């Protein structure tokens, strides 16, 4: 039972990280039907910026929570800037191209960004400082859920609520929903679609960066390649929940995180990826529109 709870808690943590990344995929897909393959790299860059900022701040004598907040903030700003630039360079010129073109462009961008970080920094793993303090009140259940894990769960939950509010109640959120429903119509009624798309990329990137900072300080090390697998997993989660569907992405991410944790705990950690993809394939075959997605028939 204890073991089960432990696995569940680590599954949920994993799931929340996937969710933070998956939201970016799902929002972008919802609006321009593109798998932003490079989204995982934005997450990785977020983690790197946080690592560099916290490294510099530590050396210059800052301490504790102030580092965490500054690092996360700067990481978020940079991720947003990268996301914005990425869209402008690699996807905007291909808005009306055949479907395969922006996807290949995205794969290219993913390769580019990975190797950019590799060359600019290092191919090796870097030690990420433990930015999240240990809370005393967590002591009694620390063997099931540590402080870092709690912070991850809470931060993700807050981010997701924030996103929901943003989409539901703000002006830009409404514009996003309108664009998602029908880009041509949205443009006709005066929505600046280009801006909406940029904002979508920015929001997605910020969420991914938050994920990056959390993972970095939770796992304790990062390298240029972490974005790739995380990205693939997060995308899997988004598809699982029904791509384009925001609550679906969160649900899919949690299901995926738990599946992996249980598979790793009860079967073998070597095969956890196999299980993750196994679940994806099963879902796509049995329910191609995902857990919460609506089945749509293509108009002919």
């Amino acid at each position, binding site marked *: 039972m204890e073991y089960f709870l432990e696995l569940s808690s680590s599954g949920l943590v994993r799931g929340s990280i996937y969710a933070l990344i998956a939201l970016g995929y799902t929002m972008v897909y919802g609006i321009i*039907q*593109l*798998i932003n393959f490079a989204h995982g790299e934005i997450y990785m*860059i977020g983690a*790197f*910026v946080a*690592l*560099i*900022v916290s*490294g*510099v701040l*530590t*050396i210059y004598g800052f301490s504790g929570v102030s580092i965490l907040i500054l690092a996360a903030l*700067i990481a978020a700003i*940079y991720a947003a*800037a*990268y996301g914005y*630039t990425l869209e402008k*360079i690699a996807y905007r*010129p291909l808005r009306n*191209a*055949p*479907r*395969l*073109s*922006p*996807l*290949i*462009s995205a*794969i*290219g961008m*993913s*390769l*580019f960004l*990975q*190797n*950019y*970080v590799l*060359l*600019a*920094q290092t191919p090796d793993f*870097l030690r990420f*400082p433990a930015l999240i303090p240990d809370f005393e009140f967590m002591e009694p259940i620390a063997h099931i859920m540590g402080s870092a894990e709690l912070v991850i769960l809470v931060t993700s939950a807050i981010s997701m609520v924030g996103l929901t509010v943003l989409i539901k109640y703000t002006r830009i959120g409404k514009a996003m929903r309108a664009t998602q429903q029908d880009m041509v119509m949205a443009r006709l009624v005066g929505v600046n679609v280009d801006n909406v798309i940029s904002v979508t990329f920015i929001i997605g990137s910020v969420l991914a960066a938050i994920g990056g900072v959390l993972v970095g300080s939770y796992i304790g090390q990062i390298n240029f390649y972490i974005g*790739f697998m995380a990205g*693939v997993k997060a*995308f*899997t989660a988004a*598809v699982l929940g029904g791509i384009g569907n925001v609550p679906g992405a969160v649900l899919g991410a949690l299901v995926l995180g738990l599946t992996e944790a249980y598979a790793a705990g009860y079967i*073998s950690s*070597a*095969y956890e*990826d*196999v299980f993750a*993809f196994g679940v*994806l*394939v099963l879902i*796509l*075959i049995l329910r*191609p529109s995902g857990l919460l997605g609506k089945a749509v028939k293509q108009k*002919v």
Partner: protein
Amino acid sequence: MVDNIKRSLLVALWFVFLTFPLMVVKVNTLKSIVEWRWMNMLWVAIGAFALSLVWRWAMARRQLKSKKAEQGEDESVKAGFATRLMEDPKLYKPALIVIALATIVFPLVVDIYQTNIMVLALIFVVLGLGLNVTVGLAGLLDLGYVAFFAVGAYTYGVLNSFYGLGFWTCLPIGGLMGALFGIALGFPILRLRGDYLAIVTLGFGSIAKIVIENWEEVFNGAKGIAGIPRPGFFGAEMNITSATTYTYYLMILMVVFAIFITNRLKDSRIGRAWMALREDEIACVAMGVDMAKTKLGAYAFGAFWAGLAGVIFAARNTYINPNSFTFMESALVLSIVVMGGMGSIIGVIIAALVLILMPEYLRAFSEYRMLMFGAVMVLMMIFRPEGLIANVRRKYTGRKVTTEDANA
């Protein structure tokens, strides 16, 4: 022009900001040292400025081109040099002879090291030609193509180490195993849309690697399989040099074979169905094409070549381990197809040779290789989606011939 310069300056500034933490700062958390690399900032600024100018110019040209196309000013009139070369027998026949001669004497004038690299490049030519069918002709994006390559290589490795089967027995088996896996993996994902296909095939690719890594009893795990024999020639004893030369000629034969076969398929009932499927799946099926059969055919055919190439790869290296079959290899083959011009055979060959040989000979380049691949993939999609050499559609001249036939 002034406006362009102003804007490019702004872009340069933006990129200086963007790359600042990663390019300039480097922290060593263990030793608590920060390294400030201010020179990088200068390079970024200059580079971004120059690239931005080029980008602007290229974008303006691109816009002009699409406007022209809209106004019906046909571009195909002034066909590119490459296209002309391929269409005029007076030009391409001598070129072909020169290439053939160069190909034949190549291993005799260079050393074994060069020959060996060339063999690797030719293996990627075959991989490119195979994936070109799946992606370029049939439009099925496959990001796990390397899995079939691994199937071929491990078919030979395993059959040889367990049962002592030789290269020539394993070659067809490897190809068929590739095709078989192509069908097996293709089957569950037939109905998926292009972008889902991408992620699922990527998943299959990683699964293949994980299984190889962890199934010690059969694949010997991460240690890999060593001592795989080179291709044999009626049991003749060969030293490394002659074995390599022999493998080279084998590969040449295989490339010629692959070109011949893909060419025939392209201009056939099957090839046309593949293209139609790529162009518009719904219309294609509504015109009576069986989607499942056609797609599986494309998967199997593409995977078949990967299987064959895998066997040769194992024989060339005499040693295989899971690290040769990562997503990077899949991405590499995909960039070969994209750069070559989807569906174009000659384009794929040139792209494969360039992408494999360049990093081998320009060591400095090899570090930046993946970075450049990435950039090239993006730029190609934006500025030259048809690839280096666009696929030329065949013209059928059946009408006059057939009226004569009818009279006869």
